[in-house]
């Protein structure tokens, strides 16, 4: 009996498989993964580079899970052809598998720019950073190395740079745009980030491209020796990491005749617009003109598709996702979301900003119609939780805009001085005793907490108001001692 066949066992594919099994224990389910290992969490690759996790510690699915849950997992087996007419997939091992529904989750691959020196593949020491294997290769190359160049100053490039700098390498990031992470950050934030990274031993070279990789012959063969910049400058490096972006992996789908733009074009039920029996999720798919490059939308798609195919929610629809990014780099707190490039010129848009470049802090929220449409929190992210939820839900914003930038501004605990406290104020919550009642006790001769407690029970519950009661008694004593005038 043919069931669901999933091509790709990365973040999107593996999530779909587990979501599907959570909802439907019986549906025949086969998953093909090009990599032989268990699926892993790509988000945690930066932890591996930084040394916080070992490569074998970032798995997403327990290896025994597939058998226990009746999933036919063909790991290390690639699909080479889709036969839509007969609804079959052909695998690299010669196997042919029928499907009723095909889920394509082939993800994307790293872009390797066509540089001189990369003609026959990358030389040793140069790695395009994308997969766990890439990560392991970078770590091998970094072993004993001194200088690293990271090509590309986007999110992934900076995470790689931070990881290598944390291992003691001297790192230079070469970036084409005028500031780092230009997709997520405005120029002001980019400058503060560059300054912060500078303190961590990472130099940024902006508005310049790499023109070639240079190599040298070593005992072990040809290996990278550095990069040449467009202005002719040479940066020597033992490790070169290419983080120049990714492109959707759609060769298989294109060959099968599915409509491709940048990704496989899908509708809100995640069906290929060319063939409703084929679904596509994650970075190989394109919805509403957008290819989503983050994990959260891919997981959202996985859950929606599982709801549709298991019929647990036949009305589930993917209608686009809100993108929130978080830099995973030790000692650099950075969260961004939505549209962050607005300045003060648009009268319909409210921009609230705080910058303290010397301390590495830059905060900005962009508001339209009392809704958050974008934000940057750099250096201190205490309000990130609040902002992400306001942004996700398009919820109306608190009237106090400062509380969007700074945690604890709103309603920080105030210590009540006995002087300012009104008589009606409750001092002892546990026994509902007011300041006035304590004052009255004092008027009747009570001079210690114990004497006040004996009459009012104040401080006999949780005991937390004992100091306050003592304060009031002392204050009353002082009032009495003070000369009247």
């Amino acid at each position, binding site marked *: 009996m043919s069931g669901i066949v999933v091509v790709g066992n990365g973040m999107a594919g593996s999530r779909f498989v587990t979501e599907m099994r959570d909802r439907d224990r019986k549906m025949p389910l086969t998953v093909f993964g090009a990599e032989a290992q268990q699926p892993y969490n790509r988000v945690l690759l930066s932890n591996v580079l930084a040394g916080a996790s070992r490569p074998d510690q970032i798995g997403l699915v327990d290896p025994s899970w597939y058998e226990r849950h009746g999933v036919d997992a063909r790991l290390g087996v690639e699909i080479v052809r889709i036969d839509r007419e007969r609804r079959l997939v052909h695998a690299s091992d010669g196997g042919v598998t029928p499907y009723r529904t095909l889920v394509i989750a082939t993800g994307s691959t790293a872009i390797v720019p066509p540089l001189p020196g990369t003609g026959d593949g990358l030389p040793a020491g140069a790695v395009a950073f994308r997969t766990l294997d890439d990560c392991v290769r970078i770590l091998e190359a970094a072993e004993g190395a001194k200088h690293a160049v990271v090509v590309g100053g986007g999110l992934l490039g900076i995470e790689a740079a931070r990881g290598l700098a944390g291992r003691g390498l001297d790192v230079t990031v070469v970036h084409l745009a005028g500031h780092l992470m230009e997709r997520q950050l405005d120029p002001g934030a980019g400058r503060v980030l560059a300054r912060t990274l500078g303190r961590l031993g990472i130099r940024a070279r902006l508005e310049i491209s790499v023109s070639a990789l240079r190599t040298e012959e070593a005992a072990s063969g040809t290996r990278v020796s550095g990069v040449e910049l467009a202005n002719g400058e040479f940066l020597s490096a033992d490790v070169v990491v290419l983080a120049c972006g990714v492109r959707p992996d759609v060769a298989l789908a294109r060959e099968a005749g599915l409509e491709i733009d940048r990704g496989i074009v899908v509708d809100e039920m995640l069906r290929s617009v060319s063939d409703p029996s084929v679904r596509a999720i994650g970075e190989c798919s394109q919805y509403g003109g957008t290819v989503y490059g983050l994990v959260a939308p891919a997981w959202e798609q996985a859950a929606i598709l599982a709801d549709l195919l298991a019929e647990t929610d036949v009305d589930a629809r993917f209608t686009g996702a809100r993108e929130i990014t978080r830099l995973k780099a030790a000692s650099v707190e950075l969260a961004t979301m939505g549209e962050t490039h607005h300045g003060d010129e648009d009268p319909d848009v409210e921009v609230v900003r705080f910058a303290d470049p010397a301390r590495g802090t830059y905060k900005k929220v962009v508001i339209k119609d009392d809704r958050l449409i974008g934000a940057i929190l750099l250096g201190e992210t205490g309000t990130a939780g609040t902002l992400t939820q306001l942004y996700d839900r398009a919820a*109306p914003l608190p009237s106090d805009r400062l509380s969007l930038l700074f945690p604890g501004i*709103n309603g920080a605990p105030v210590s009540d001085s006995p002087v300012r406290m009104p008589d009606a104020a409750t001092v002892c919550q546990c026994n*509902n005793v007011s300041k006035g009642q304590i004052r009255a006790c004092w008027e009747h001769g009570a001079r210690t907490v114990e004497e006040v407690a004996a009459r009012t029970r104040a401080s006999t*519950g949780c005991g937390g108001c004992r100091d306050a009661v003592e304060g009031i008694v002392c204050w009353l004593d002082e009032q009495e001692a003070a000369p009247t005038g």
Partner: protein
Amino acid sequence: MSVSEQVIPETPTVAPGGTPTHCPYCALQCGMAVGGSPVRVTPREDVPANRGGLCQKGWTAAELLTVPDRLTTPLMRAHLGAPLEPCTWEEALDRIAGEVARLQERHGRDAIGVFGGGGLTNEKAYQLGKFARIALRTSQIDYNGRFCMSSAAAALNRAFGLDRGLPGPITDLARADAIMLVGGNVAETMPPFMRHLTEMRERGGALVVIDPRRTATAKQADLHLQPAPGTDLALANGMLHLAIAEGLVDEDFVAARTGGFEAVRISVNAYWPDRVERITGVPVPQMREAVRLLGRGNRSLILTARGAEQHARGTDTVTAFINLALALGLPGREGGGYGCLTGQGNGQGGREHGQKADQLPGYRKIDDPAAREHVAAVWGVDPEIIPGPGRSAFELLDALGADDGPKALLLFGSNPVVSAPRSGLIEERINALEFLAVSDFVLSETARRADVVLPTAQWAEESGTMTNLEGRVLRRRRAVAAPDGVRTDLEILAGLADRLAAPGTWSTEPAEVFDELRAASAGGPADYAGITYERIESEGGVFWPCPSEDHPGTPRPFAERFHTPDGRARFTPVDHTGPAEGVDAAYPVHLITGRVLAHYQSGAQTRRIAPLVDASPEPFVEIHPDLAARSGVAEGEMVRVTSRRGTVTVRARLVDTIRHDTVFIPFHWAEEGRANLLTNTALDPMSRMPEFKVCAVRLEPHEENGADQ
């Protein structure tokens, strides 16, 4: 108001020679002496739980004994629609026995349901379970403890093989390195408990509180995490993810004393910090700080309470926190581990001795043949006559009067018309019964609907044992005589058993019932066999399990091994799915419910005590000023709060201590302000706990606000 007009309470007179006993309310079971004329209470210094402290509920507990509408005669309705009128005990008990016989003959034994409470003594809880099984021979018995801590119980059994609230004596708390309290507001719900936390902080320990509100407890914390309602599980998984990344896992402990960590390690890889931040709204730096505080020593303790547990995923949520505690190597160490804060006075003992639909005394499983045989021998019956498992609390209430459900209900120590989820529906189910009998000492909202009301003795008028939140068995002592015309529940059950010609013995002496309970629990997980009234008195309470009289009791049950077959604690991977009812355009606000300091549970007791009513006279809804402004609601105005299940009208209280997307209503009031008219009945698949703690509502100004202006 001038100072001289301030009301000064009279000095509470100490009652020399007052009877030492415990408070009638929560699971802290504060020690108090009761005596004098008029009767007063004074706190006891010799009970570690409160060490001389009492909250206002405790101080005023004596007033319960003389509430003006105290029932002192049975009441009965002559027929449907007739008023409740005084009758004799003979008439009342004959009527109940007659209805039982009539309905069982027509519909079978399960036509009679029994509903108990977590405030009943061990003796009464035991006797009630026995009464259901061998006098009525119905499977349809459960109790309101199902609404209390059943999720923690299920998670504890799964992880440690034993469900006992705290892992050690309460005096351990003060010596902890850190305590993380999840979904509990002890500064209001059990104020003297705060003394232990304050002492811990004075010794350098850190208090972390997780609560969507900045409660009185959260204000005293070193760190307060304020997650979106229904996201605690994700938060716990996120904290475990961070603990692993920060190298805080106690690998030696995990290897030596646990099993199943690898699957959990993999499962929490999906809970990287910013994903959890997005789900919970808790900033990553705060999560990291909380993990570091917990991980810095191994005398740290994670405590959950109803806020974490009363969810359709409550068992898994507690499991996530147990996983975190296990990974950090906390359980089984003196002063550290995981614990559940019991809610009701005898929430612990109440569930150990047979009130639960699936259990027999001693925390035995009712479908275990060996357990049935043991208990049947103590009861002097054939194991065959003991019914199998019945419906859980909400399912039992929801089935009342239905074709396949009970046609009559006998209710002891509970007020489900106010306290059950979606209480409007439960009221309809109760009205659909052919017969309702209620044992209570006042005419509660549920008792008002009964056909027969039995006036029963209350805390200071009866004797027995209670098991407090520590798992320590305590003596409740009779301090005053019950009013004329009142009987104890044991006398009521004996009277009914006699009329039903039930097998077994039906003592009305608590000490004799306790001896029988000891025998019935012997060899079970909650083994009370070695506990005697004398030992409780001379030792200041005895911790269960205590299998023999020469056994010292078990203050710290996991010191050597966990109570699983292999002695190891079990990790279980769990996943976040969110509240059963999320917010949407029609119902855009989360509702959470809980307690206030001056009241207890359905308020049937505390709403009758003047100082408590003065302190907290009416229900209210806490709203953030921004949400109030958007909803057109001003401070002090009446607000209509509506969910898919009902509407309440309560006064607005504007506070900046609650999240912008959440409102809070306490659940102690009846009628228009009955919070549980709104709550969701989605049940936890393991514990059958309803999702009291989160549902979706909308807010509207009450029409009359405009008319007033």
